[in-house]
């Protein structure tokens, strides 16, 4: 059916994007939040187990408009990285995110989510507290949220861990962000039994913003300043601002039912990459 005919990117290109998406100086969620949502009051905790610093959530004001913001947060220095668990959320992070999104829904406020995680935390405590259940619930509940959701992948869109706050009416990626079902390293380890082949895997996985746009999985690409967002965080935030302003104003005109329907149909048609063959097994 919908065949992707564009040529594969050069192996080096995908890998370059991976490096940029993980650049040590790349702006993280809070870097954008403090530039775009002023003032911003962070809200903590899932009302159930605890507070997860790998996800920040709160009440923000975007150009005067009240907007709930939820973002995966990485740390900059070693201490912050450990505190943020390298941006790998635990179940309480996803549950906090959902709590704040429902709070926004209750009071009719739109939601902006910022994706930037290597993945949901693969640890013993996360499993004990139901990592899979927390993500699954978010996917289902976000599908029915009666307010606009605008999602932007700002860095690493690490699989289900990213998608767990990523079911938006609009989904964008920054120019050098990546979004993948598995990290290139893990993919390489499985396929070539050699994590060093990550560069090859990065190309094979089609994880760049251009790839996802071509596959019909995102709505648009947000340009970054020359060389990447880390060269000019203020400039990157301003470019993000333009897209958020437009998306939020377009969605503001829709009723709750229309928002839910639009979001549903958007994801319903994702991945129409199948065909009916003659002579099936039945």
């Amino acid at each position, binding site marked *: *059916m*919908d*065949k*992707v005919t564009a040529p*594969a990117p050069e192996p080096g290109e995908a890998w370059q994007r991976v490096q940029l998406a993980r650049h040590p100086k790349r702006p993280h969620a809070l870097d954008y939040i403090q530039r775009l949502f002023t003032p911003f009051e962070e809200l903590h905790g899932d009302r159930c187990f605890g507070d997860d610093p790998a996800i920040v959530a709160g009440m923000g004001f975007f150009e005067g408009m009240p907007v709930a913001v939820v973002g995966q947060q990485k740390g900059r220095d070693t201490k912050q990285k450990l505190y943020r668990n390298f941006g790998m959320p635990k179940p309480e992070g996803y549950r906090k995110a959902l709590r704040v999104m429902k709070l926004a829904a209750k009071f009719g406020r739109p939601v902006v989510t910022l994706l930037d995680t290597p993945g*949901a*935390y*693969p*640890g*013993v405590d996360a*499993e*004990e507290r*139901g*990592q*899979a*259940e927390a*993500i*699954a*619930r978010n*996917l*289902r*509940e976000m*599908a*029915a949220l009666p307010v606009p959701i605008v999602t932007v992948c700002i860095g690493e*869109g690490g*699989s*289900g861990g990213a*998608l767990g706050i990523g*079911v938006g009416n609009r989904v964008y990626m920054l120019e050098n962000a990546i*979004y*993948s*079902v*598995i990290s290139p390293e*893990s*993919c390489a380890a499985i*396929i*070539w039994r050699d994590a060093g082949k990550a560069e090859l895997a990065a190309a*094979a*996985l*089609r*994880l760049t913003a251009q*790839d*996802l746009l071509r*596959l019909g*999985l995102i709505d648009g690409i947000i340009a970054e300043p020359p060389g990447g967002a880390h060269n000019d965080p203020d400039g990157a935030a301003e470019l993000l601002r333009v897209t958020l302003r437009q998306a939020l104003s377009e969605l503001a005109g829709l009723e709750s039912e229309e928002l839910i329907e639009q*979001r*549903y149909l958007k*994801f*319903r048609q*994702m*991945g*129409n*990459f*199948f*065909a*009916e*063959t003659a002579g*099936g*097994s*039945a």
Partner: protein
Amino acid sequence: MAWFTRSKPTRQPAAEEERRVRTEGLWTKCDHCRQIIWRKALEDNLQVCPKCDFHFKIDAVTRLRLLLDDGRWEEYDSDLVSTDPLEFVDQRPYKERLAAMQQATSLKDAVIAASGRLQSRPVQICVLELKFIGGSMGAVLGEKITRAIERSLARREPLIIVSASGGARMQEGAVSLMQMAKVSAALMRLDQARVPFISVLTDPTTGGVTASFAMLGDLNIAEPGALIGFAGPRVIEQTIRQKLPEGFQRAEFLLQHGFLDAVVRRHDMKPFIARALDFFCGPVH
């Protein structure tokens, strides 16, 4: 899509199963309790070890025969095949891998979507086939399950999904990832329409399948000993750099931590589901 009957399991056991059940003529050894058991006794006991109750893996067709009245069902979308959206090539093109799998399993992808009757009640049912690229979810599996949910919704027939999967299908990249959102969104509609959905988790159910539909049942029930988790045990061991305790991520562990409604033996699965559907929908007339 005519009604048809499968009188026998039509497929040979795959290599993996062959390793689990070491065949020595009529006898076989249980990998769990290490006792020698008569093959026929194992078969008569629904592939559950008569000595230690270990539940061997069974394929999708066997599962359907077990759950549906008279071993009869109508299959849907059996001809749906992946068109390889990424043109994925590792050591071997994904297209070739798919073709080989299709040959080996006589399925086109990793799920059978069907309707049938369960103790006389019409149901929609999807059963994942672990032998087909690890039961992984790509565009075809996501679409077939979404269509099953839509049939459930349109006919107001309960939905049962029996999972056995390593998660999202790597070879379809972000396309497979988004199937998690697609299926979960469809389940939200089913939920709002108050049509029952029973999720049955079997050994193993991990990754993107657990983190989407498998955990979204009105009831989430599992077979004893089934491995269930988000991250696979090897990934966790690499992260924490230590061995995981015995029983971690097994069905009983999830039950204890509050993520399953019940652990149900294979013999009791059909009556359990029937009672649940009686409870949700009232008795069948």
